């Protein structure tokens, strides 16, 4: 049951990622792309979690934590860039 659920979830996440990629590619606006990238970051947390479940290992937990933290900072930086150009001022 669990492995089936794992596969189903994985399939859903993969589709989500592909849709992120789609939005990232076609845009049309810059915030659209940034949104897509941000979502891709968040979705890849799902990938890590599923990998952990699949391998029965928590070794990758910190990776997920870091993605959550750093993806955010990355998005903030791009937004700041769009708004102000100079991201540290």
């Amino acid at each position: 049951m669990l492995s089936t659920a794992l596969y189903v979830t994985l399939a859903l996440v993969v589709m989500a990622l592909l849709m992120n990629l789609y939005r990232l590619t076609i845009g049309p606006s810059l915030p659209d792309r940034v949104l897509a990238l941000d979502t891709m970051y968040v979705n890849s947390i799902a990938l890590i979690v599923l990998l952990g479940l699949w391998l029965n290992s928590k070794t990758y937990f910190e990776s997920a934590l870091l993605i959550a933290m750093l993806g955010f900072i990355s998005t903030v930086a791009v937004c700041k860039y769009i708004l102000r150009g100079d991201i540290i001022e």
Partner: protein
Amino acid sequence: MTLLWIALLPLLGVLVPALTAQRGRSFCSLATAVLPATALVMTLLNVPALLDGEQLRFSVTWMPELALDLAFRLDGLSLLFNLLILGIGLLIILYAHYYLAKDEPFGRFYAFLMLFMASMVGISMSDNLILLWLFWELTSLSSFLLIGYWSYRSDARKGARMALTVTGAGGLALLAGLLLLGDMAGSFNMGDVLASGDVILADPRYPLMLGLVLLGAFTKSAQFPFHFWLPHAMAAPTPVSAYLHSATMVKAGIFLMARLHPAIAGSELWSVVVSLVGIVTMLYGAWFALMKTDLKGILAFSTVSHLGLITVLLGIGSPMAILAALFHILNHATFKAALFMSAGIIDHETGTRELKQLGGLKKAMPVTALLTTLAAAAMAGVPLFNGFLSKEMFFTESLATPVLGGVSWLLPALATLGGILSVAYSLRLVHAVFFKPAREEPPKTPHEPPHLMRLPVEILVVLCVVVGLFPAFMATGLLELASEAVIGSPLDFHLAIWHGVNLPLIMSLLAFVVGIALYWRHGNVRRFTQQFAGIDARRVFERILISIGYRSEQLIAALEGNSLQRYVGWLWLAALVMGGIGLVQITDLTGAAGNQPLDGILILGAVMLMFGGVATAATHRYRLISLLMLSVVGLFVALTFARFSAPDLALTQLSVEVVTMILLMLALFFLPQKTPRESSPLRNVRDMLLAGTLGLVIASLNYAVMTRDTLSISSFFVENSKPGGGGYNVVNVILVDFRGFDTLGEITVLAIAGLAIFKLLNRLRLFMPHSDGEGRVWSPDRYPAVLTSISMTLLPLALLVSAFIFLRGHNQPGGGFIAGLITAVALILLYMARGVAWAQERLDFPFQPVAVIGVAVATLTGLGSWLFGHPFLTSAFGYFSLPLIGTFELATALLFDLGVYLAVVGATLMILANLGKVTTAHRPVTETSGKDTDAAAATSSAKEPR
């Protein structure tokens, strides 16, 4: 040892004028003369031994790898040359003492002169081929300095460079020739070489070697067609000309041919080449001596001519010819030195060397006139002068030689022609200067020079006459020794003034009659030949050099092209070729280990990565979008690391990726937002092909390695990680222990990057766009409130996570590097959210010391192991128990990792925060309509970043 001193004293003499120049000219001149005089005396003291048939040799091993010995010999030939070099050299010193003007730097002159003398003595006495070459090139250099002595004169500079270029080129050829010669003879020792003539002649490389050696000799001795530098070397002060072009420099080539005669002269090739070159040179020089109107020009070309004569004799190569050659070397040196010095006196007293300004000087300068006439008579070969004797011998040998086979009459005929010209130009010299009335007034009123200035000329002229009158008494001994040295066996000869009426005498008479007639009519001849003139050797030479320089510039510009794209293209092409060579040798790309099965998630990852990569490249003209695509690649690289069991790498990649993004965006603001379309489609296709092919090669190699089993040393690390390194995380233990040295280097790199970037930011002037790429003015909301609040909430959390990652690194994924980046990123978030001024106020410590302390901590941890007698960076760890807390581990590796952490934090902040600060300070204050409280930050003056 005396040989060494003879060779070394002139060399030491270089220092004397430099040391004594301040003490006045007379003292300096005297002091300078002491050492060469001593050397001359020492040379003479050796004559008895030489006459006893002793082998005078000195040898010290200097550089066995090059077969270079400090080896000197003194045989007859060296004796002859030493006497000329040192004797005439002393006279030149005396002469120069009066010749040089009061304000000229005579110390330098003497130093150069001594250097030249030393190198000539060296050539004459070298008993080793390489040593000979060393001195040989030294004459080129010292003559360059001497010719260019009046450096403010353009002709002096050009003449000097020309002489150096031609003789230097010859010297290089000579080096090649001598190396070959030594190789052929199996030794670089002169004695061995001279003894192995047969071997040398039989060697197939003989013609090449001969060509190279002769190239050296001919350029030095101004043989046709390399003669052109010599007349231009007359720009030198007259003492120099007198020395270089009578006794020394130009005789070096002759000396070389004489010296190596036993080893290399025994072939038909030698005879033909050397005689032909000699005869052409002789006639060519004589002809131009007749045509020149400049006193020193006449002498220069006559020198060329006489050198040709000696060369012919060496080419003929019979014992008597060699004797004649040696005799003429002696004679020419004496009369030509005298003539040059006379010319110098005339120049000195009248201020000109032009024949048309000179004339009738016999009244003002009767003694000089007499001396010059006598010397010129010697040059013309008038009986009772030394020049007559050697010329007679030359005529005799020209008749006796079978060199040119069927046209054997040609040589005597040409020799006679040379004689005719020689008589004509000698006559012209004397007559035009002293007897014929002048056409123009000379710049100065002429009178006799100081007596001592004339003394050298008097001595030389007396020698000319005495040798001419009493040849047997004066020259036989010396010539016996010298000819024995060249020929190898004693030569039985008798020098006499009168040999009876024979063909050579008739040739001489012919030469006189026709020569006088020629001078009588030479005005017509000159007018006739002037229409062919106009080829100025120097100008041709310079034009060639300029053209070479210009062509070189074009060539190098075409090759280099100042195009980074091309350079990078070459690099990748080279990599492609090299990788390709390896690749084609792999017969079976798939190795024994084969492929592991594939799954959907891997395909997704691959698709994302490939798509991200291609999109990065495809959108590169829209830079921010390209960056976003790059970010996808970065993210999925991290995920790939996670997928293939590398959690540490995943963490590192993630944190580096975000820092890189921030950095690239920081920089992008100051760069154009878009890239213009400028590469041609063809170039794009070419680049794609290159990139694609190299990518394919890399992929194939990657595949080939992955499908083969690893034979790695890695099991050692896994086994020893815990027992030896005290940690469970093998990757971390490798980083801080097994290969801690790498890590130390790596954090040094990081610290240097921070320092380097600081340097770049210094004095940075920025293009600060007032609006974004679409022309939109920036949002006035510098620090969105939502962001400011959240950043403060996140900071403690991030620091906590960072501490966590740091502390567990040794046993679990993590470590100082990742922790450092997290800390840095959290602080950067503050900078983004609250601004530089705000953050700076609170983070009021400089970053550079943090980075450096990081490196210091790591280094000190490494050095600590010395205290326990272990090598640098040896780790130690132990387990400790405390009540309540339980057992815990303490490892020096953690300290090392702390260094890493600090270095990373310091360096990253140095890079990012400083960059942010610099740019902010420059931001124009055009849009401060907002009433935000932080507006003051924008107006703060540009401060140095920390």
